[in-house]
């Protein structure tokens, strides 16, 4: 897809999203008997009011950006990876468990923790990729189900074989300081995860647009029959795309563990992997626009808490708006796909 074409569509999507956020959001606030001005005021104040709040907004944006980039890889290959949540959780688990085991200097510990997360997420993405390539299994069902398996698997491991003696919490031991991502802003949870995510986005865009691998992946997604007849191996492409998709989401889980929590906890994600679907679609599956979209959703995520606390509007309004955005954009994509056939 030519860049200008994409940008035009992304612009329209952003207008649609703004209308949904402010229009439907205002309606929901009125139902909660709160003035939209007060509620949105609280939301933006919560997102931008102080240095720490801006940092937290960027933290939320980072946590969404990784899984959204992963989702974009799969979607560009024509594969609806709904399993970013599970891939992110297992990536976090692998990072947390491995990071707590080995006393290493930081320049080994941090890369190892991140790579462990990417590998675990990559394996978790590769499973539905393999099932799709080998047996034609529907990846939507497989990835959706594997989310549940991932959560239960991690919960079992931290409560069973890997349980901390004398602790009732569902978590791994805390990471040694050397394995923790350094802070970017003091007194906040914002770490080097944010610039790493930006670099991943730029590299991913280059890979998709400028490499033979990216060309074949996009061809397989945009016109599978033509790609197949031109000699592109659709099964192999699906497998690699799903593995890469899972690896990026898993890397995201690892940065949450290494940067924010400093240990794996089964509650590490409030649904980043699902909200990231909306982020990826709003960003029109273009890594650079996904950065913009993740910042916008980061505002909603971090401001939503303040909105609930200060204006008394349930945080669920943010979930409601996010859900509507997914329906609107995914629905529009389906309509567009139907028309073009």
């Amino acid at each position, binding site marked *: 897809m*030519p860049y200008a*074409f994409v940008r035009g569509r992304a612009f329209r999507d952003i207008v649609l999203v703004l209308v949904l956020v402010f229009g439907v959001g205002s309606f929901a606030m009125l139902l909660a008997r709160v003035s939209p001005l007060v509620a949105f005021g609280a939301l933006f104040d919560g997102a931008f009011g102080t240095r720490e709040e801006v940092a937290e907004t960027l933290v939320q944006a980072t946590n969404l950006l990784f899984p959204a980039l992963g989702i974009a890889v799969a979607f560009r290959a024509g594969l609806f990876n709904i399993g970013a949540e599970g891939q992110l959780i297992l990536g976090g688990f692998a990072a947390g468990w491995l990071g707590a085991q080995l006393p290493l200097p930081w320049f080994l510990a941090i890369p190892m923790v991140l790579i462990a997360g990417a590998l675990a997420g990559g394996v978790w993405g590769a499973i539905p990729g393999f099932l799709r390539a080998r047996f034609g299994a529907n990846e939507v069902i497989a990835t959706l189900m594997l989310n549940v398996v991932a959560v239960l698997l991690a919960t079992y491991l931290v409560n069973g074989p890997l349980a901390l003696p004398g602790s009732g919490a569902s978590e791994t031991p805390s990471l040694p300081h050397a394995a923790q991502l350094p802070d970017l802003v003091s007194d906040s949870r914002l770490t080097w995860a944010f610039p790493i995510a930006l670099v991943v986005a730029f590299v991913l865009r280059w890979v998709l647009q400028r490499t033979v691998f990216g060309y074949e992946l996009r*061809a397989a997604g945009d*016109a599978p029959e*033509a790609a197949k*007849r*031109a000699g592109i*191996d659709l099964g192999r492409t699906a497998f690699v795309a799903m593995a890469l998709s899972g690896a990026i989401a898993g890397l995201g889980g690892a940065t949450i563990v290494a940067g924010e929590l400093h240990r794996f906890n089964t509650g590490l994600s409030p649904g980043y992997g699902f909200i990231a679907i909306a982020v990826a679609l709003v960003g029109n599956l273009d890594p650079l626009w996904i950065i913009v979209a993740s910042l916008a959703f980061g505002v909603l995520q971090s401001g939503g808490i303040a909105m609930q606390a200060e204006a008394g509007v349930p945080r669920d309004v943010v979930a409601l708006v996010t859900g509507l955005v997914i329906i609107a954009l995914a629905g529009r994509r389906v309509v567009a796909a139907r028309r073009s056939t």
Partner: protein
Amino acid sequence: MRRRFGAVQAVDGVDLELLPGEIHALVGENGAGKSTLAAIAYGAVRADEGSVDATGVVGLVHQHFKLIDRLRVWENVLLNREPKRGWTIDVPAARARVLELAAKYGLAVDPDAVVETLPVGIKQRVELLRELDREPAVLLLDEPTAALAPSEIASFFETVRGLAARGTAVLVVTHKLAEVIAYSQRVTVMRAGAVVARHLTGETNAAAIAREMVGGDVAALATRAETASKALLEVRGLSATSGTSALSGATFDVRAGEIVGIAGIEGNGQSALADALAGVVPFSGELRLAGVTLRPDDSPAARLARGIRVIPQDRRHEALILDWNVRDNVVLGRQRTLPRAGYEAAAREVIDRFDVRPPDPGAIVGMLSGGNQQKIVVGRLLAGDPKLVVAYQPTRGIDVGASALVQSRLIEARNAGAGVLLISFELDEIFACADRVLVIAGGAFVGSFDRAAIDRGRVGALMAGGQA
């Protein structure tokens, strides 16, 4: 009458009058606005300007059948007009009505047959019966004979004559000039959305109409050079299936520097043949290319690497990525061998050689006309010395100028020593290009003719003979 689609003035100030009892032919190149005009007259498309007056119901038989394959004949014929008994359909009455209709017009059908099991000619009858049930005063036929065998075409026009004799005004939209001359009383020629000529059919001829359609002389095809013929493709007992298309036990050869035309009616095994060669479906039997045996489980990539290039039947889904630009489409299949810096030059080469318009490597392929899209497909697949070219309906739905260009390039590939397998439903195309003609019917080869000994009548009879 005027109608605009986007930037294209599809129909521009056309007046057309149909008289009761006449068969009126509407001819023109693809994209001249014929089908749009028919759709406006039927009421399926609204005119931006102008009006349609008819003394009764207007019926339209589409070029592509609009039947529901899973339903029975009577269900299709009476769709939405079923005789009712309370809340249920009166099935005996419905069957009787279809039988009566069929007898009245001499269009024998089995009302209980499921449409998807019927051959194309019978499906056409079902289409026609559905419109006739509405007792139209005006009947519009859009490319009615595109899928019919020569013998079916004759009997189809007998029926149409019968209708005209009952006072129906019939408009036949077509590009087959032989049928125009044989069966119509008046002819209207369209070009670029406007009427360029009107004739009484008896006062003109096919060559004159062709010049009016194109707006000048039709480009001549490339001349055939002498080629040293040596064996290239050996096919022995080839059986394969692709979707509903089945080929059973085909045996033939294609020599280097030769165009072998596969004549046949759509749905007689052509898709299975092309797909087996492309490596899209498995096959049984033996395939050898230049002495090397091809394996049934080869991937499309393996076939490409052997120098086999298949121009697929559905360019929009099987060959092109419509959202992408010309440059990225031209290199599809060569993305691993061409350096990125060579993409632009590869695109320019195809654009120049095939006169792609607009000549812009950055143009989005989905925005180009069908003819220019096909030039990109053929240009891409003929690049880099192919050994065997399989062309499946390479000029389907594209205008005369683009068709001549595509056919010329195929002949040039032959002259350069490639073997070409030309699968087409248009006999004229096969006779114009092929060195040898094989007739396919019912998934098997039923006849073979050398260029010098082609007998159009016999080819047509053999094509129809294999029909179920």
